[in-house]
């Protein structure tokens, strides 16, 4: 029973599935951020993307600076504890070097948009926004009447990316994807999309995945392409594989302040680098080993196996 083999390389996956003008979501809430895939989009020179990401962090700064993005759909515009996104700010505050369209929600508003998209619903209700200026800023945030006699409630429309790109710990060749640690709204962002590309730390044998089916966040039917891409989340992290490169995030802030420095960085670390393996080599073994984590395995659980002849048509 050979399932289709969805394993490809990142260059092919992006070339095949990401086209100019598309709506593209790259998700991962502080964890499993698909940096390698974002850099590949930059390298391939995609333009006019509507870029969806709850927390546009320095990946957004980089993709916007590279000229890939004409519109941002998001809910928090800052790089975690490391400060402002100056590339985003320059465009929004002074249209420098050009304006950036922004469609803005709260975090749960974005989550609800992905849920509606994933569930095939025309809208999703949430108990936020009463009295807020957000619905005035964003007319896609609307209200519906409660048919059970309660007060009106705000709703958001579905978000249906053309492509969602995620990073995960592992997948099998047919595309069953497992992740652990912070899983964010990745399941929803994937099911909401037409096409799903997942980069993983490792492709594993089917029996590894099938030993723990509850760990599968995306069954194969929800996944279009799988790419083995170790270190694909750096400078963010992959739980159990490598830690966040906090120094890198801090180093970004002064770069981000200087448009020339951003372009220089992109040239050196994206355009002049063919792929993630070369990027990691350039980063150097010492820096990489500084991000290593010590093992802390989960205790296995037992799924059980029916004993032959124990049951049946008795």
């Amino acid at each position, binding site marked *: *029973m050979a*399932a289709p083999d969805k394993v490809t390389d990142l260059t092919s996956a992006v070339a095949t599935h990401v086209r100019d003008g598309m709506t593209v979501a790259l998700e991962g809430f502080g964890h499993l951020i698909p940096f390698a895939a974002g850099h590949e989009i930059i390298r391939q020179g995609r333009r006019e993307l509507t870029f969806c990401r709850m927390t546009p962090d320095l990946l957004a700064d980089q993709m916007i600076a590279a000229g890939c993005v004409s519109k941002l759909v998001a809910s928090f515009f800052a790089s975690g504890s490391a400060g402002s996104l100056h590339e985003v700010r320059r465009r929004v505050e002074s249209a420098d070097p050009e304006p950036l369209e922004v469609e803005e929600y709260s975090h749960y508003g974005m989550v609800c948009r992905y849920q509606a998209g994933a*569930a*095939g619903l025309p809208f999703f209700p949430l108990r936020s926004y009463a009295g807020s200026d957000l619905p005035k800023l964003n007319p896609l945030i609307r209200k519906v009447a409660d048919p059970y006699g309660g007060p009106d409630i705000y709703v958001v429309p579905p978000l249906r990316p053309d492509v969602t790109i995620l990073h995960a710990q592992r997948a099998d060749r047919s595309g069953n994807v497992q992740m652990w640690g912070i899983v964010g709204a990745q399941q929803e962002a994937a099911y909401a999309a037409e096409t799903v590309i997942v980069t993983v730390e490792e492709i594993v044998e089917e029996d590894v995945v099938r030993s723990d*089916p509850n760990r*599968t966040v995306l069954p194969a039917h929800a996944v279009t392409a799988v790419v083995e891409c170790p270190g694909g989340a750096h400078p963010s992290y992959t739980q159990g594989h490598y830690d966040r490169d906090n120094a890198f995030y801090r180093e970004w802030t002064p770069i981000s302040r200087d448009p020339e420095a951003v372009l220089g960085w992109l040239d050196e670390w994206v355009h002049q680098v063919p792929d993630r393996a070369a990027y990691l080599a350039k980063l150097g073994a010492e820096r990489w080993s500084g991000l290593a984590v010590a093992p802390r395995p989960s205790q296995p659980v037992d*799924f059980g196996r029916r004993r032959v002849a124990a*049951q*049946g*048509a008795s």
Partner: protein
Amino acid sequence: MSTSLSDVAPSSTEFLAAVAARQLAGKRRVFAGVGLPTLAVDLARRTLDPDVELVYESGICGAQPEGLAEGIADSVLVSGAAAVLSMPALFSYVLQRGHVDVGFLGAAQIDRWGSLNTSFIGDWDRPTVRLPGAGGAAEIMPNAGECIVVLRRHDPGALPAELDFCTSPSPVRAHEEDPRMVPPGHGVSTVITPMAVLRRPEKLGELEISEVHPGLTVDDVRAATGWEIAVAEDVRETARPTVEEVRLLREEIDTVRLYLR
């Protein structure tokens, strides 16, 4: 069930399962209960397409059971599955989002448009028979690409002019309620009964007799149907199960005769 491998009755589970299996040619993901649909999918995997995948409403995707499952929540379906999702995820993200090609349904009654009754025989308030109700069928009907219905009886009680209750509506009924509410799925495409195979080629159309089982005539089928059922232009005799299909069902798929009757 002492028939030979080459002479199974059209009313037998082997016959219905083999006919059902053939409907799955070219299909990818099937949403089904256990029993006859399980046999049909297993047979289709072995004879038509190894990639046919069963999704269960219990949340299981990509099961590789080591034994025959007794129920859609059987532990053998879980052990070694590719994924077990929560029911909210299964119903919303997998089914309602449109990832299911074929739904397999049963029913106590089906009407000419492929609407199903699995709720009541007789009066709603004091029914003659309280049937199991909607379960997941009310979701499978609008959201699966198409639905295949297997009936164990073919008579005007099971195929009436009017349902006692509509549990799982055809797109035709959805269209009557509100033309804009017509669901994405085709509704019932195929009905397999002990007498015939009925098909519904148009999403807003009626069932018609497409195949008549060996030994029966179109008139036999019409007489057993509760409305003036249409007849396809190219109606033909249902192909019997092959010896190999029957052998697989009896000797490899359901060796303990859990579902074969």
